[in-house]
């Protein structure tokens, strides 16, 4: 049988009395006072006797105070608790790559290192619990060294700080004795982003490491020696760009093992077509060079861009020689150029309408004086400036979305040379053109036989006599069938109401004469009396001309809809609706599409299902229920984005029918990396309606953007946390820095109250009795 001194291997003294510090100090002071008074009182006695009595009194007082404080002995039987050691094995895709500095792949080096832990685990069985985990793909899960060594490295990313956070959370409340990281050091998470090559660890990363409160041991899976690779390591770009605004794209080209002085051509391609090239000269064994591309998107919509460098012989990897991205080109403001042949109320009210619209960036130019006007005033007394024809119609024309030629004749301004440029602006660049009537417009403006006439959706009369070019009668234009529902002329959803509104608007005073609409022009409003080629003469005609849109309006009186009608109790709403619709239609406002393809995301991974929604609207923009259409999906490989090419493979052709909400849903499976173009086609009243959208399907290769092992990063992690750093294949588990367990487990515990015993009470009485007896004997009673 063992005594308590053998059952318990640790203990503490406890004070059970609920006395505060002030009380204890007070008692001590009181004791000192009592002893001082005693010493004073006993001073006539012999010193020996006095000391004995004083000692007895001090002991009595001390014992009494001790009993008040209630001392106890806290006895424990304890054993040490093993701490956790976590071995993190990098399972991201970069581990598939060659180790470069030694034979074999990086994951093979890791697989060889893992069995080394067996001896350490055995030796430290009572101190550490080892857990093995892979990081780089999804959640951290415990695994065996064998499984980790055998499993393929397919993780799309490597986020070591994220993995360490997960370890900290997993072992919250437990002691972590150390972490061992087996990795090539490539980190696509916060650590890699914050700490570039050659840089020290940043403070945020340091704080994250300190939070773990354990040494991190790192084992690098090879060094960069012997690696040969050229990579588009990073492409910095915005997701959105404004049309006609220059865009900057920065790319970082990383080379290793490439001869110094080697010149590399970096290409930027848009949809496979070469946009720009940049030359990069390799300046060292391991080098990074930034290249900048600046270009101007010319059309609205999604565009796929590719930055690529040519593959070199003996490269470790060629998948990282190109980077693709999607740029969504949008419109910031509608840029309108309003050119006016002479000031008029029509010009004045249209300018006011455009100026008030915050989405319109308007540049107006008005001809205030011509050569036929009296010029008796010195130039310095006039505020006139020369007509900047070259700037407006040549060098800067491309910056506009819409050009309005309002009662403007080009002849007096030596502008014939710029007319082909206007044609190019509409047909090639997709710009909008509106020609508005007046005595200086259409045939009266001399446009017959010019490139501008080619653009117009109406035929101009060949005559030269004034009455052949202009009709002076007032009239109210009438809607055609197409005009009933066209966004420009639809002043009300209901066709009858729309017709009534048009019939009630103030009359137009005079019109330019046109010979009728061209085959591709759509008359929306016609003259009630004038007829050309057996049909009512169009007054408002629209059409698609090449990539752009054009509108021909043959009067210069629309201002009356917004002003004159007010005198009769009307509103300017019709004027505003008309012009708002015209501007939006001319600039191809996406919101005016009757068929829309919606894909949600832009970039998908191979094997994903893409939900495709086709939304079809009636001309009045109500849902088109039960509308049948066809969805055609074409595919082209990524190589076409790098080397160019227009070959497309039709991968899906499917009929669809819209439901009660005017929508049809189709699921598209994208198996191969490449570009998928989704084309929805619906038969409309005025022909086929279409909409297209594009998705990019690419493997997630960010792990391969930078494949050079980052041994120095791993070394800094170990340095920062007090761990050891080693480089495989030279790995010794015995050299790892692991902390001794600090926590203990209490198996048994016993509290012995020292004051609550007869012995203490007897001792107190004995001391009191002795003191009383001695005092009596020495004559102090």
């Amino acid at each position, binding site marked *: 049988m063992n005594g308590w001194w053998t059952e318990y291997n640790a203990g503490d003294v406890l004070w059970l009395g609920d006395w505060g510090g002030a009380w204890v100090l007070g008692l001590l002071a009181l004791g000192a006072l009592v002893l001082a008074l005693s010493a004073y009182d006993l001073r006539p006695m012999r010193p020996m006797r006095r000391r004995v009595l004083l000692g007895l009194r001090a002991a009595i007082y001390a014992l009494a105070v001790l009993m008040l404080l209630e001392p106890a002995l806290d006895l424990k039987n304890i054993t040490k608790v093993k701490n956790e050691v976590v071995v993190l094995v990098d399972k991201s895709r970069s581990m598939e790559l060659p180790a470069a500095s030694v034979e074999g792949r990086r994951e093979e080096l890791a697989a060889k290192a893992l069995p080394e832990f067996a001896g350490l685990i055995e030796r430290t069985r009572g101190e550490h619990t080892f857990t093995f985990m892979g990081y780089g793909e999804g959640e951290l899960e415990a695994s065996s060294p064998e499984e980790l060594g055998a499993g393929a490295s397919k993780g799309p990313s490597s986020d070591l700080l994220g993995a360490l956070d997960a370890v900290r959370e997993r072992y919250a409340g437990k002691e972590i004795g150390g972490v061992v990281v087996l990795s090539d050091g490539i980190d696509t998470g916060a650590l890699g982003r914050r700490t570039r090559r050659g840089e020290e660890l940043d403070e945020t990363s340091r704080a994250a490491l300190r939070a773990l409160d354990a040494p991190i041991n790192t084992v690098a899976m090879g060094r960069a020696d012997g690696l040969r690779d050229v990579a588009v390591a990073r492409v910095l770009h915005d997701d959105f760009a404004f049309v006609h605004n220059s865009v900057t794209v920065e790319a970082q080209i990383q080379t290793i093992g490439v001869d110094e002085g080697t010149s590399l051509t970096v290409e930027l391609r848009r949809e496979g077509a070469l946009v720009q090239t940049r030359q990069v000269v390799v300046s060292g064994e391991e080098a990074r060079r930034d290249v900048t591309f600046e270009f101007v998107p010319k059309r609205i919509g999604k565009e796929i861009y590719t930055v690529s460098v040519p593959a070199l012989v003996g490269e470790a990897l060629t998948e990282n020689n190109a980077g693709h991205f999607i740029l969504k080109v949008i419109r910031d403001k509608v840029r309108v150029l309003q050119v006016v042949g002479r000031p008029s*109320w029509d010009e004045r009210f249209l*300018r006011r309408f455009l100026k008030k619209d915050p989405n319109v*960036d308007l540049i107006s130019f008005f001809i205030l004086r011509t050569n036929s006007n009296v010029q008796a005033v010195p130039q310095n007394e006039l505020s006139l400036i020369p007509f900047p024809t070259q700037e407006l119609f040549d060098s800067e024309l491309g910056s506009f979305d819409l050009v309005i030629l309002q009662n403007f*004749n080009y002849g007096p301004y030596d502008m014939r040379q710029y007319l082909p440029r206007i044609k190019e602006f509409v047909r090639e660049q997709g710009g909008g053109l509106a020609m508005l009537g007046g005595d200086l417009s259409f045939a009266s403006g001399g446009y017959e036989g010019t490139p501008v006439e080619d653009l117009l959706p109406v035929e101009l009369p060949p005559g030269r006599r*004034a009455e052949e070019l202009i009709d002076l009668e007032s009239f109210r234009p009438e809607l055609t069938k197409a005009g009933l529902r066209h966004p420009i002329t639809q002043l009300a959803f209901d066709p009858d109401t729309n017709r009534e509104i048009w019939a009630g608007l103030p009359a137009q005073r005079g019109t330019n004469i046109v010979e009728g609409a061209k085959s591709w022009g759509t008359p929306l409003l016609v003259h009630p009396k004038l007829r050309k080629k057996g049909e009512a003469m169009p007054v408002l005609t629209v059409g698609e001309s090449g990539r752009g849109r054009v509108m021909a309006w043959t009067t210069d*009186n629309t201002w009356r809809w*917004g*002003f004159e009608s007010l*005198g009769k109790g009307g509103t300017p709403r019709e004027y505003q609706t008309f012009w708002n619709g015209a501007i939006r239609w001319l600039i191809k406002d996406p919101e005016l599409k009757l068929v829309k393809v919606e894909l949600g995301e832009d970039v998908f991974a191979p094997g994903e299902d893409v939900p495709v929604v086709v939304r079809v609207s009636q001309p009045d923009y109500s849902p088109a229920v039960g509308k049948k259409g066809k969805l055609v999906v074409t595919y082209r490989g990524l190589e076409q984005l790098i080397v160019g090419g227009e070959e497309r493979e039709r991968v899906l052709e499917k009929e669809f029918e819209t439901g009660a909400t005017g929508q049809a849903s189709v699921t598209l499976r994208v198996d191969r990396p490449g570009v998928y173009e989704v084309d929805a086609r619906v038969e409309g009243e005025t022909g086929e309606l279409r909409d297209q959208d594009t998705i990019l399907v690419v493997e997630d290769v960010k792990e391969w953007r930078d494949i050079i092992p980052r041994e120095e990063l791993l070394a800094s992690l170990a340095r920062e946390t007090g761990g050891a750093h080693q480089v495989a294949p030279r790995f010794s588990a015995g050299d790892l820095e692991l902390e001794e367990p600090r926590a203990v487990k209490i198996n048994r515990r016993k509290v012995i109250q020292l004051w609550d015993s007869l012995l203490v009470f007897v001792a107190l009485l004995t001391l009191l009795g002795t003191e009383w007896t001695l005092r009596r004997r020495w004559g102090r009673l």
Partner: protein
Amino acid sequence: MKRREVLVGAAALAAASAWSSTARAMGDDDRLRMAMLRPSRGETSPREGASRRLLQELEKRTSVHVDPTVRVVDIGPEMFEVPFLIMSGERGFEPWSAEQVDMMRTYLQAGGFLLVDASSGVSQGPFISSVVRELGRIYPDEKLGAIPAGHVLYKSFYLLDRAYGRVSVSEKMDAIAQGDRLPVVVSYNDLLGAWSRDSFGNWEYDVVPHGDFQRERAFRLGVNLVMYALCVNYKEDQVHIPFILKRRRWKVN
């Protein structure tokens, strides 16, 4: 310039002159018109013929096509056919009805322009007092304020630095401001008096103190007022055109 370019230019000018000979305005309704606004029924303006002279000068000096027929209108629906009204007078007039005030407010807010001219050539008087009273009812939150010398109105066609008229009682004109626009401009110098001719083409009134110089400037101010009504702050835009074009960054240099 090369000979070929000169020939092309000459051909273009010839063609332009050919077109101008065949071109005609889209009817009189389409030309620029002005109307004299009667402050009250039966009231006649002492300067009714003056605006016709201004329109003639406008046709000669600028590219604007005008209809020199000047109508006289009352406050009512017909004034909405003419976005430029001139109201001149010497005498005070009765307060307008609430309906007239509303209609005048609608006219001005929708884009109409009103030039008020004191024919008596005084900066204060019964006519101006009546005008101020009615403007206070049309724009209860706005007050007449002086048009600064650098305002675009003074450079909408001619470069001017002050107000002119038959007399020279004020170097400035006053206006009501509505956003970036002046819908109402008040002249105190009998501007129309400087434009007036009799049926034989003679000037009706002497212009003092600077005679013909001052009369020419009065016409220039009239041209500027019309150009301002037609183009508003267009001239301010022009100043910024190079900047606007430059800032666009639509080309890679």
